């Protein structure tokens, strides 16, 4: 369920503002432009998504915003503070939770580690324990509070990691692919807790990166799609879907054979095409300017000698918008 933006939040206050932000990594043998000319405005109270494939620059952006990395050009402010010059004041107002890392000291107990980190924020022990216990309860971790971290599943560890992010009551919370590699249930619990936490206080802000379309669609008020270090488009999930609303979306299944993706992309009237393999079939998603284009698509397939196993029209999704805007699907790079 997309949240309705809270009317009581002061929409004119910006939680994040970047101007012409850029970052180039120079290593011994290469120069990578991870971010370029990023202009971003996130209002206080928003749950803002940064959506993009692996290597798009999402983590780089987050690291700059949380003061873990210096930008090579441009400026960025979080909660009104400059991330380079005012990083000390800023650090007490933000928190970050990264996914896919299995973070934690295996020898410590869950509640003990959380308490220790609360002490690095100067929170009174009594207050800290009350918050920790409440959050552990909410995330279903109360029963493992005194267990060693090494004994937790990765889903539980990531929930504990989220508790660490929430317990300091940050003004802006950064979540860098928080549900990556988690099972469906744990991912759902985490998302639910993030929504609940946002609903509790309309001035809280979350910046979430993800490469899961559905996560961005379900959770975020607004989304920026990033690709190769640039923001391709920005808007609500609904407005992004409008990008493809006038297109005809077709799912085409082919039996295995010679590659045809590039050939399909060349057919006049095909706005975008992507493919994934499932159950031994190649499943193509095609965006067509109108129904008539389908005839040309089918003859292109026939010329290639491949056999059609199925064909269906469907409603456009955020994924289709992504493919149209970026020119490839989110997972294409991984499967190639």
């Amino acid at each position, binding site marked *: 369920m997309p949240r309705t933006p809270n009317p009581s939040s002061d929409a004119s206050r910006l939680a994040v503002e970047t101007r012409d932000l850029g970052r180039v990594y120079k290593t011994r043998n290469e120069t990578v432009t991870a971010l370029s000319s990023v202009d971003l405005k996130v209002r206080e109270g928003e749950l803002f998504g940064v959506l993009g494939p692996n290597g798009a620059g999402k983590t780089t952006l987050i*690291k700059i915003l949380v*003061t873990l990395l210096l930008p090579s050009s441009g400026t960025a402010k979080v909660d009104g503070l400059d991330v380079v010059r005012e990083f*000390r004041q800023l650090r007490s107002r933000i928190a970050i939770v*990264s996914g896919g890392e299995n973070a*934690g000291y295996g020898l410590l107990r869950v509640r003990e580690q959380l308490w220790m980190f609360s*002490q690095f924020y*100067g929170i009174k022990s009594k207050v800290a324990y009350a918050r920790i216990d409440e959050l552990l309860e909410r995330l279903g971790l109360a029963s493992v509070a005194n267990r060693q971290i090494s004994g937790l599943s990765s889903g539980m560890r990531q929930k504990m990691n989220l508790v*660490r992010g929430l317990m300091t009551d940050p003004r802006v919370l950064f979540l860098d692919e928080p549900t990556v590699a988690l099972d469906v249930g744990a991912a759902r619990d985490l998302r639910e807790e993030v929504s609940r936490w946002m609903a509790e206080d309309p001035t809280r802000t979350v910046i979430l990166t993800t490469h899961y379309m559905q996560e961005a669609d379900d959770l975020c008020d607004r989304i920026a799609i990033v690709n190769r270090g640039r923001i391709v488009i920005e808007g609500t999930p609904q407005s992004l879907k409008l990008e493809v609303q006038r297109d005809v979306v077709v799912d085409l299944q082919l039996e295995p054979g010679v590659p045809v993706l590039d050939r399909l992309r060349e057919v006049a009237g095909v706005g975008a095409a992507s493919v994934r393999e499932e159950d031994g079939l190649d499943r193509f998603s095609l965006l067509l300017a109108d129904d008539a284009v389908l005839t040309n698509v089918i003859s292109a397939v026939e010329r290639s000698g491949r056999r059609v196993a199925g064909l269906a029209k469907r409603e456009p999704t955020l994924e289709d918008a992504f493919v149209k805007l970026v020119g490839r699907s989110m997972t294409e790079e991984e499967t190639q």
Partner: protein
Amino acid sequence: MVLALARTWSGYRTAVRLGWLVSSNWTSPVPFVIYTIIRPISGALILVVMYNVITGGRGNTRNYLAFLVIGVSFWAFVTEGVSDFAVGILEDRGRFKMLKYAYLAPLRFPVFLVGRASSKLTSAVASVAIVLVVATVGLRLPINPLSVDYPLLAIACLLAFISVMAFSIALSVVLLAGRDAYGYGEIMAQVLYIVSGAIFPISVLPGPLAFFASLSPLVYWLELTRRSILHGRVYEMFPGLSDGEVLTRLALATAGTVLLGYLVYRWADRQARWKGYIDMDAAQ
């Protein structure tokens, strides 16, 4: 102000405790005994045998043994404070993935590091005491606990702690500014071992190295530990200097180390942030 100090103090205490809990080697007693007792003592004995061979048995073995045992036992402060400490910080980054969360907390990062180093130095005290007792009894060294100059020993050790911390904290952040940094802490501790008068007087080093060694606070610290424990019954590295003069040199060298450590820290911290390596190591 008072509140800020109270917060810093509680953050510091927590960092000490974290250090104790996450890398306490006494959870497994056998490696602990080997590492902290047998290794230094057997190391000292090997050196004595070599000394006998080189001097053809004409040297004063017992005196050299006493010189060595003090150097070797107190060296635990440096191995734990420099090498083990650096490994701990690198593990926070690479293995536990928690370093960035400590780094980004409002507690000043150097305070966190001082806390972690303190936990190493306090656990080193145990190792020093055990090695000294075992060596005194087992090798019948001329050490009488009743005639030790404890005030001199304490102030020398305090200054040495400060130096070791300044050095190792700067070193650890230099290592964080690289992606593949394991092993360098150990190498640094070994280099210091050679040039700090732990196993032989620095006067036997080649000229430039001896000069470099004479700037190190560790040399004066070891000299003072030997003087306070053995009262001139062993070789002195600086027979021309009074206790007070050696102490002054230790204080000056400590001040220099702290200043240098501060400058290196600032530079390396910025490097690490520039490269984005606070949360990234070579495995990523």
